[in-house]
């Protein structure tokens, strides 16, 4: 079973994303900010990370940069999922090694479509 880490400071969003991803066959873990996500990732890197941008303690971009530097850190597929919807943010995310980008609000179709494109499902 593929593993997934959902990183978002909103419990509601984590819950919605978890429902969608579990239905798609992922074993899900959650983190409420970038630092917590980094701790989880150090124990074991997930196959897939759904990543919010703006969070307290450590934001999504900082997490991505740190995670990519870890041994094996180039492997996880990272998809941003954020209210930041301007092209500059998207370009910055891609430049930092994000694989895909979802602009909130999202739904199950959008997540499924992106995962299909990325070959994860």
């Amino acid at each position, binding site marked *: 079973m593929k593993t997934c880490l959902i990183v978002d400071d909103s419990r509601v969003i984590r819950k919605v994303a978890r429902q969608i991803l579990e239905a798609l066959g992922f074993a899900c873990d959650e983190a409420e900010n970038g630092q917590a996500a980094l701790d989880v990732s150090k124990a074991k890197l997930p196959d897939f990370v759904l990543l919010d941008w703006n969070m307290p303690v450590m934001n999504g971009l900082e997490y991505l940069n740190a995670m990519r530097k870890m041994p094996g850190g180039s492997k996880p597929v990272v998809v941003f999922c954020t209210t930041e*919807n*301007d*092209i500059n943010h*998207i*370009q910055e995310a*891609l430049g930092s090694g994000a694989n*895909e*980008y*979802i*602009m909130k609000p*999202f739904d199950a*179709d*959008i997540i499924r*479509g*992106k995962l*299909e*494109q990325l070959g994860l499902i």
Partner: protein
Amino acid sequence: MKSEDFELFSTLVKQRSGLILTADKAYLLESRLFPVARKHNIKSLEDMAQVLRARREETLMFDITEAMTTNESFFFRDQKPFTLFQKTLLPKLLAARVDKKQIRIWSAAASSGQEAYSLAMVCVEEAVKLQDWRVEIIGTDISREMVNRAKSGIYSQFEVQRGLPVTHLVKYFQQISGDKWQIKDSIRQMVQFREGNLLTDFSAAGPFDIVLCRNVLIYFDLPTKAHVLGSIAGVMQPDGFLLLGGAETVLGISDKFKIVSGEHGLYVKAESSYEAVA
């Protein structure tokens, strides 16, 4: 709605577009025709039926038909046809048309244009191979509103996230406001959109090397499907390709085409020498 009114509207829509409305779709008819009645300053659907019985007013009949079309579409819908286009059909045509260096593609029932623009994006990705080639992509739809939307190339944030890889979004679109994105002029110029009715109007004028007619035949009855497939065959090159939607086929409907084994949704003309099973 009175059954004779339902009958009147559904017959009109079928005659003009081929779209079939069964009695269980009465709610759909009502919800979509109310705005049309309002636009024409008609109080109720009953009155609208009366107006039509008195005189066959063209703009009213046009609006009723347009309102009953289902226009859902998205970029790279089903992915597979676009991979097939890029990896198989384009290379075949690059070899077969090396003298003329011209490829003509028709997106029939193009709706808001995502299918045609997806093809254009693939062509740009393959630009190296297409240098000195003339690729024409034509999109037609019965709905004026959809043709205008397609021409504008403007899509909502929701639409650009369905099927479109974000790398393509960044490369081929510009953000015109927070949640509105417009396809860049360089892509827009590769595609022409026009109004066109699949039942009557084949002035989009072939011959075409590739025809995509996806997710529209499902709304037609058998004779209409056969008629449309026959007309498409008439505007296709003998060695051209036809792509249908996932739930559509030519099997048992038209002998003008044959399926290509192993390639779901791909068809070639009956006389084509392309390796295919009957």
